[in-house]
């Protein structure tokens, strides 16, 4: 059995799990912020939030799939674990920096709008 294939399947499973979970949490909690920024129109807020969520999913899952193309060949289980953890670490670190930037802007805007 080719170890690369096992690595790809584990990696895709974990990465999509993390991405979908984080996206869902941000979507649910982000609704509060969007309704504070645009207080009058509730329908519009939900639509904007949906669009944001879709963009987020597209970018992240696209990136996760693209990294599969440049994967080095794997000969043992420890190499498999190393490469999977490295790729997932890169994805989570990118997500974390994007997330902190978003938080920074959101809190800034909320202060200005009040």
């Amino acid at each position: 059995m080719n170890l690369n294939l096992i690595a790809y399947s584990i990696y895709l499973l974990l990465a999509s799990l993390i991405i979908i979970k984080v996206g869902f949490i941000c979507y649910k909690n982000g609704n509060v912020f969007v309704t504070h920024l645009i207080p009058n129109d509730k329908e519009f807020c939900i639509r904007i939030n949906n669009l944001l969520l879709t963009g987020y999913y597209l970018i992240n899952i696209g990136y996760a799939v693209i990294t599969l193309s440049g994967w080095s060949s794997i000969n043992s289980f420890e190499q498999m674990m190393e490469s999977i953890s490295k790729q997932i670490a890169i994805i989570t670190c990118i997500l974390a920096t994007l997330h902190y930037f978003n938080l920074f802007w959101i809190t800034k805007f909320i202060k200005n709008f009040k």
Partner: protein
Amino acid sequence: METSKIFIGYIIYLPIAIALTYFVSKTLFKNGKTFMIDIFKGKDDIALATNRLFEVGFYLLNIGWALLILKINHRNFNNTYQNLIEILSFKIGGFSIYLGLMLFINLYLFFRGRKKSNRKSQVVTQKLQQPQS
């Protein structure tokens, strides 16, 4: 199938790192709720949402870092259990020091936000009181 010592090291390291992250973030954000409610005065929904978002960011950053430093280099490893324990202790100790630093940075952010919101509300109340007096 023989499992090498490095693989055993990974299997020991991963649960410890993830459990450490979990406990630290649980403690921090259970108590951070109070700060957030203090910062966004009266607006509980925003406070709770911000707290949750900070928690997600904390998890992402720390688990990402834990996975990034997972790799044990073959050249520094001479295939004995003693060396495995030494390398693992260095990794886990380093990771917990890093977690402590992150905890203090987050606490600093909480305190700064609290101070800022206090100052802002004082300015507002002064402006409200001035026309009357």
